[in-house]
């Protein structure tokens, strides 16, 4: 054990990898070894090699360049959509827990309504009203996950509201906002963070699925889900076209989850000075 307050090791590894992916994604379009839309018909469907790390696709485009250039779509999708569902869902859930009665009924029945529609269908519905595009996909995916965040935030807040320190705040005459912000939210974070990291992964997957259905960024853009969709006809002769973005997605998801769990432990004052192996 080093020092009194060191980071959990998993958190360190996870954050380094996620940070690396974020930096690569941000720089992606500028550092690609090849142009992402440069056709090279003579080099089509080549296996991974020193020249083309992840091989080439059916038009001879460099898969590595395309994965690099498409990374920011996936990241924006995951973090953006989850951010939206957090910003809407958590306050709604906390309000529902605090104001029992008709406010709660209104919020929770609305949420039930939303949850009863399958996510892909809901995404399709939202996107059907407008032209496809990245930011619309983000909003659509974000809205799809609002009910989950609302329910979680409500459940966590309900048990916290039964604690005596909330009664103490009421005995001081503190208002709803103060109680929710100072007494409930800091204690509600751990489960919400874990759920958020899970949600990021699901949002990326759902975003990819919507792209796959042709509702996200449109070709020739190189979004990961789109790439996987486009690779389908060649899955036998050139599996790397789909595998490369798929494995990158996989790595990102695992690391985001590890960071989520690490953050939960780090933010818990009860675990300070103990640290994990």
């Amino acid at each position, binding site marked *: 054990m080093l020092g009194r307050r060191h980071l959990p090791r998993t958190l360190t590894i996870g954050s380094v990898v996620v940070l690396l992916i974020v930096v690569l994604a941000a720089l992606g379009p500028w550092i690609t070894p090849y142009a992402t839309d440069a056709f090279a018909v003579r080099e089509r469907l080549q296996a991974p090699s020193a020249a083309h790390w992840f091989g080439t696709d059916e038009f001879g485009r460099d898969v590595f360049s395309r994965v690099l250039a498409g990374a920011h779509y996936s990241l924006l999708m995951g973090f953006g959509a989850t951010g939206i569902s957090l910003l809407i869902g958590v306050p709604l859930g906390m309000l529902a827990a605090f104001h029992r009665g008709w406010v709660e009924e209104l919020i929770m029945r609305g949420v039930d309504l939303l949850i009863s529609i399958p996510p892909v269908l809901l995404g399709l519905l939202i996107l059907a009203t407008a032209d496809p595009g990245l930011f619309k996909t983000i909003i659509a995916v974000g809205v799809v996950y609002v009910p989950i965040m609302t329910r979680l935030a409500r459940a966590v807040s309900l048990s916290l509201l039964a*604690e005596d320190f909330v009664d*103490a705040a009421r*005995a*001081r005459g503190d208002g709803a906002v103060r109680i929710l912000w100072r007494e409930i939210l800091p204690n509600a974070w751990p489960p919400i963070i874990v759920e958020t990291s899970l949600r990021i992964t699901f949002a990326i997957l759902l975003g990819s699925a919507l792209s796959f259905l042709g509702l996200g960024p449109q070709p020739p853009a190189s979004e990961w889900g789109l790439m996987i969709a486009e690779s389908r006809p060649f899955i036998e002769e050139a599996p790397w076209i789909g595998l490369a973005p798929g494995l990158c997605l996989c790595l990102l998801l695992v690391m985001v989850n590890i960071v989520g769990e690490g953050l939960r432990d780090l933010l818990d004052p009860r675990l300070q000075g103990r640290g994990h192996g």
Partner: protein
Amino acid sequence: MADAKTPLLEIRDLSLRYATARGKVQALDKVSLALPRGRAMGLVGESGSGKSSLVLALLGLLGKGAELSSALAQFDGQDLRKTAAALRGRRIGMVFQDPSAVLNPTLTIGYQVAEPLIHHRGLAERAALARAVALLNEVGIARAEAVARSYPHQLSGGMKQRAVIATALACEPELLLLDEPTTALDVTVEAQILDLLDGLRRTRNVAMLLVSHNLGIVDRLCDDLTVLYAGRVVEQGRASEILQTPRHPYTRGLLAALPRADQGRLARLTPIPGGLPDLTRPDPGCNFRARCAFAEEACTAPQALDDKAGCQVRCHRADAVAAAPLPQPEPMAAARKEATGAPLLIAMEMSKSFRLGSAFSLTFSGGLPRLRRATEVVAVDDVSLHVARGEVLGLVGESGCGKSTLGRLVLRLLEANAGRLSLDGQVVPAVPGVEFRRRAQIVFQNPDSSLNPRQRVREALRWPLIRFGLADGAEADREVDRLLELVRLPASYGSRYPHQMSGGEKQRIGIARALASRPDFLVCDEAVSALDVSVQAAVLNLLSDLRERLGLAYLFISHDIGVIAHVATRIAVMYRGAIVEQGSAAQVLAPPYHPYTEALLSAVPLVGAKTRVRVRLMGDASTAPSSTGCRFAPRCPHRIGAICDSLPPPVRTSAQGHRIACHLPVETLAALPPALGRAA
């Protein structure tokens, strides 16, 4: 079977170490004890003393990371270390603290009692169920057959604990291990269970090892006593002898710290200073010396368990300790007894009922759908009380009687259905203003739940100061230091999180937070019930000092009559939502009293009062049906007749303001024997 001379259970030099993140913790250090057939031994110590670990070690139920070693561990000639798994549930029965947690909510009571018979004895299910009914009968459950068919949630706490005892008895055990068997129960129910256990010991000749923090219970039930401190046996011998003349400073400290109902109002209790030693580095010398008033140079040497007058004592100064007089608690000076001045807080005719389930439910009657209003439970029914400046009104009653609800009603934390409230002559509206919030504060029972785990002490104490505009900036910091000093904690505690403090320290922070707004009135809702005796004494002393220094008025809610008798100037006794008796402490603790008060006082387990008259109630508050008359009538031992069931009892008020709600004339009530064993 071994011959009668060898003890049924014998352990010698049992040591136990747990591996934790902070290193190895020495939970038990060479504990020895012997328990003959049919005898009962009490195992006493504060939390962290290792008493529950010892029980788990005997049952072979310790988890991973526990290192157990012993020179001998025998049960009836068999090596417990090898056979514990085969013995438990068969020849060794267990009863744990919380019956609601022990019983499986999805199985019938009868099946749960029959289960050990089916699994251990190979009985057919039908025969086992018949036996279960007989067992339920034996533990004093009326209508045993109906109870056997019911599920745990349909029974009251006392009934559940009886069922658990029946389960433990199913395979005719020779030894019962009882881990705080009555701690989760009300005092009148506790008395019933203790009677039951005492009877079982005689009829079945079963040996008992009773783990308890309550010396009164041990004195009531046990022949022998083992006192554990931080994993070591400090005193062992006959219970009556040890409780009469404690020879170890720790035992002595426990007795002196105990508020006792039969001693009435005391000036001060004697707490044991400090806390448990660090068990990761066991002290080779006496591990109590840091907290001991008798400590001297030689205490750093290892102490052996020596034989003193038939008792084993681990203290080389045992003779000096025994010879020194017990700190005689001085009664409260008469001058300070009576509060003066007009009432500060007056609550008139407060009522509160709770709805069960949703407001309306759809039912079908005669083939037609009907909307039915949900049933309501009346928690507080038309209660009036007042608290004067500098006065402590003790509110005592069993769980579910509505005392906590009443405490929250007078703070307007719950919306009342009816009633008026005034503070200092000013009417308090249903949504009170800032000034009322500042002047009326609350201290909670559970120190873990009363502080926000994510807030440092300084943050928690600063906010009320800023909220009520009492201090700001550097001035607020100085005020926080002053508050910490007020509850006798060093200023360095400001930077701590709740999990970095002990239960007693957390409770002090809870008190400091309530005091931050400089209130006049404090509701203490079971404020010391979750604390160990030694810590409880210190917090009680602190509360009474604060009352004197700051002129605070308390509404002190507790189920512990000993604590109430110690702190209260006036006492109100509550039963099923109503106050049945109210008067000064001396009036309430001596006849004439309400039959319920009598039963309550008589049920309190006291140290050294085995001969007093016992009044036992049947059932418990939740099982009694409600009636239009006196709510206590179904359980009342002095019930007159039909009048008790049909007419609400009149409130008889004496010239001194002592009020009793009972049909019986005051003269009859005055003739009742003193329930505390002597005239209080």
